[in-house]
C-alpha cells in the first residue's frame, strides 16, 4: 500500500469517526432528537451536496490542469442558470397550455439543461481563451487577478441586462413538487425534484469519470495535469486539452445552475458568489485536483450546510461552512484526497 493511499485511508477513517459521533449526538442528545429529523436533513443535504459537487468538479479539474483558481467559475454557474431561464421563457414557460403536462415538462427541463450546459461550456472556453491563455506563463498572481475581473464583469453584466431582482423559475409544473414519503406521513419526505437532481448529477459524474478514465481525451487531460511540458513533447495539443477541460467543467457548472434554480425556484445575479465559494470549499475539503475528492467534498459541504440550517439556524449555516474550510486548510491543507505537493527546484 502506497504512502498516498494510506494517508487517504487515514483521512477517510477520521471523517467516518467524526460523522458517527455527530450522528449519535444529533439523534440522541441534541435538543431536537430523533431519527426522522436527522434523516430528513441528511436527504436535503445530499440533494444540495450533489449540486455543490458538480460545481466543485469544475474547480478541481481546472486546478488540476492549470494550477489556477478559477474565481469566475461561480459566475459561469450563474450564467448557466440564466440561460436556462431564457429557454424557459422562450418556450412559453411552465404554464404554456400548448405543452402537455408530464412528458412536456420533462422535455422543457431537458432543453433547459442542454442549453445551459452548451452555453456555459462555450462561455468557459471563451473565458479561458481571452482571460487565462495569454497569461499561462505569467506569474501565478496574474491569472488570479484576471479571474477576479472576469467574475466582476459577468456579475455586473447580468445586473446591467436583467436588473437586481429575483427571477422566478416558474417551474412548479415542470417537475411535480410531490414526492415519496418514507415511513408514513410524518416520515422522511423526498421530492421527485430532489431525486431528479441526485440522479442526474450522479449520471453526469459517472460520465465524467468514464471520460477521464477511458477516453483518449481523458488520458490527455491526466497527462497534461501531470506534466504539461512533457505531454506537449509527446504530441498532445495542450491548448485543445485545456479548452476541453474548461468546456466540461463549465458545462457541469451550467447543469448545477439549472438544478439550483429548480431547487430554489429563483435566479439572480449574485447567486454565483456564495454557491461558487461553497463549491470551492467542497473542492478544497476533498483535496483540490482530485475528482473523487470533489464529489465527496461537495456531499460533505451540502450535509454540513443542511445540518447547520436544521440544528442551528439559517444565518449561521454559511459561517459554519466557511469555518470548516478554514479549519481544513489549517489542519489538512491538501484535503481528504489531495496528494502532498512536491516542489521542484
Amino acid at each position, binding site marked *: 500500500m502506497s504512502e498516498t493511499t494510506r494517508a487517504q485511508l487515514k483521512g477517510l477513517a477520521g471523517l467516518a469517526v467524526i460523522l458517527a459521533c455527530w450522528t449519535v449526538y444529533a439523534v440522541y442528545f441534541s435538543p431536537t432528537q430523533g431519527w426522522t429529523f436527522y434523516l430528513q436533513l441528511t436527504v436535503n443535504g445530499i440533494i444540495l451536496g450533489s449540486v455543490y459537487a458538480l460545481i466543485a468538479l469544475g474547480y478541481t479539474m481546472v486546478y488540476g490542469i492549470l494550477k489556477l*483558481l478559477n474565481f469566475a467559475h461561480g459566475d459561469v454557474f450563474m450564467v448557466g442558470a440564466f440561460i436556462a431561464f431564457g429557454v424557459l421563457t422562450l418556450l412559453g414557460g411552465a404554464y404554456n397550455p400548448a405543452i402537455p403536462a408530464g412528458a412536456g415538462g420533462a422535455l422543457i427541463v431537458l432543453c433547459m439543461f442542454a442549453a445551459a450546459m452548451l452555453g456555459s461550456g462555450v462561455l468557459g472556453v471563451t473565458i479561458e481563451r481571452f482571460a487565462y491563455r495569454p497569461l499561462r506563463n505569467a506569474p501565478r498572481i*496574474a491569472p*488570479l487577478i484576471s479571474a477576479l475581473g472576469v467574475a466582476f464583469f459577468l456579475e455586473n453584466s447580468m*445586473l*446591467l441586462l436583467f436588473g437586481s431582482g429575483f427571477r422566478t423559475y416558474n417551474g412548479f409544473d415542470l417537475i411535480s413538487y410531490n414526492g415519496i414519503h418514507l415511513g408514513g406521513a410524518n416520515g422522511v419526505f423526498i421530492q421527485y425534484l430532489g431525486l431528479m437532481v441526485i440522479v442526474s448529477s450522479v449520471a453526469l459524474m459517472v460520465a465524467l469519470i468514464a471520460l477521464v478514465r477511458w477516453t483518449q481525451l481523458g488520458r490527455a487531460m491526466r497527462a497534461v495535469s501531470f506534466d504539461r511540458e512533457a505531454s506537449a513533447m509527446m504530441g498532445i495539443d495542450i491548448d485543445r486539452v485545456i479548452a476541453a477541460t474548461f468546456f466540461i467543467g463549465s458545462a457541469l457548472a451550467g447543469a448545477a445552475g439549472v438544478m439550483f434554480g429548480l431547487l430554489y425556484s429563483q435566479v439572480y445575479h449574485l447567486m454565483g458568489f456564495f454557491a461558487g465559494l461553497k463549491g470551492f470549499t467542497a473542492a478544497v475539503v476533498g483535496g483540490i485536483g482530485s475528482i473523487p475528492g470533489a464529489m465527496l467534498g461537495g456531499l460533505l459541504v451540502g450535509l454540513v450546510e443542511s445540518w447547520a440550517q436544521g440544528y442551528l439556524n439559517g*444565518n449561521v449555516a454559511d459561517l459554519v461552512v*466557511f469555518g470548516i474550510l478554514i479549519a481544513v486548510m489549517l489542519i489538512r491543507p491538501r484535503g481528504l484526497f489531495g496528494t502532498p505537493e512536491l516542489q521542484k527546484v
Partner: protein
Amino acid sequence: MSDTEHPPTPESEPPDRKIGVDQWVAQADDRRQKATGLGGRIAHIWRILPPAGKLALLTPAIVVPFLGISNGNLFNYGIFILIYALLALGLNVVLGFAGLLDLGYVAFFGFGAYIYAFLSSAHSEKGHVYAHHWDAQYSIPVAVAICALLGLFLGSSSRRLLGDYLAIVTLFFGQAFVVFTNAADPYGITNGSNGLANIDPLTFFGGHLTIHTTRGYYWFLLAVVMLMLVVLHFLSESRTGRAWKASREDPLAAEQMGIPVNRIKIMAFSFGAGIAGLAGSIFAAVQTGAFPQNFGTAVLILIYAVVILGGTGSLTGMIVGSIVIIASNQALDSTSPPNQARVLFYAVLIAAVLLTMKTWPKRIAALLGAAVFGLVLHAIVGAVWSNGTNGQVTSGGFLTGVIKHWVLMPVHPHRLAIWGYLLLIVCVVVLVNLKGWWRILVLVPTLSLTAFVWENLMILQPAVTRAVLFGLLLIAVMTIRPQGLFGSAKVEIV
C-alpha cells in the same frame, strides 16, 4: 574553463550600476531603454529621473486642478483620489512588494473606519453608549495598530497556505466583515446596515487643531499621502524592501539566501493592513460616518483597478492610477451629469481605436468608416422603420444632434439593447481574433454597436456600467500589459 581565462573586467561595466543588479538583468534594462518614439523617450526620462524629481512633478498634478474647484467637486474628486491613493499604496506593499494576493484588504479599511468611529464619536445604540471623543492623535494610531495586529494574525494563520489559498482565506475574511457589520452582529454595536453616524471630525490636541472643512481634509490627506510616499520609497529600497522583492520573485532562492520568507511576508501583510487602517480612520472622519456598503467587493475591485493599472510595485503608478481610476469612477457615478460620462466614454473608445490600430491610414479608415457607417445605417433604418430612430436621447447636451443622427435610438430600446450587448461581446471576441484590414471591417460596425449599447443601455445605469468596465479593465491590463502603466516588466529568466 581554464584558469588562464580572465573573468570580465570590472572596468567594462558602467560605474553607476545599482547594487544587486547583475549583468544579465542590466542588459535587459538597456534593451528596454531602446524603446523609440515619443512615448519611449518620455518613459526613459521618467525612469532616470530621481525620486525627488518624480515627487516634484507629481505634486502639481494632484494639487493644481483642485485649487479653484468647488467644495462638492473637491470632495468627490480630490479627497477620494487621495484616499484611494493611500489605499493603493498600502495594497502595493502587499501585492506589489511581497506578491501576496490579499482579497480581504478592504476589510482592514473597514476596521480602521469602525475603530475610529468607536473611539471618537458620541452616540448610543441599543443601550450601548459611546461618548469617548478621543483625540485623533490617539485614536488614529490605535486604529492603525489594531489593523496591523489583525493583519499579523490573519497572515500568520494562513502562513502554511500556498498563494492561492491565501487569496481564498482573505476573500472569506473580507466577506465575513461585510456580513458581520451588516446583519450578523449580535450586539448591535455596528448598528447594522445603517452604520455609525455623527463621528467626530479630526480633532488634535484637545481641540487646538480641528480639521472639519473639505479643504482642510484635502490638505491633510495630501500631507499624509506625500509622507507615505517618502516612507514607502525608503522602505522599498531598504533591507526589508529588498527582501520582500526577493521573496516575491523566487521564495525558494530567497529562503536559501537566508531571508526568513514567511516572517517578512506576514510583515508585509501587516504593514499593508496598517496603511488600510489609517486610510479607513481618515475616511470615517471625512464622511463623519462608517457604513458597511463602503467596504464591499465593489470597493475592493476599485482598489485593485488602481493598483493594477498603475503598475504593481511602482509608487508613481499608485498616484497616477488613483487619479485615472477614481476620476472616471466619480464621473460615472449616477449623481454626476450623464454627459460627463458620455464624453469620457467616447474619448476612451477613440483612444482604444488609436492604440489598437498601429498605422495612421488604418486609424483614419476605422474612425471615418464608423462615422459613415453610422450615418448610412441610421438613414436606412429611419426610412424602413421610423420607430427605430425616434427614441429619446438621455441628456445629450452639446452632443444631442450628433447622437440623434448617428446612433439608432429606438422608442422601446430595452430588449434590443440586451441583444445588442450580447452581440457586442461576440463582436469583440471575433475582433480580437482577426488581423489586418479584416479587423477594420469588423471594427467599424462594432463601434456603431458600442455607441448603440452605450446610448440605449449603459448610460441609464452608469454605476453598473463602471463596474462592468473595471472588470474588463482588470482583464485587459493583465493580458495586454501586466506591469501596468508604471510597473517594470518582469525579466523572464529561462
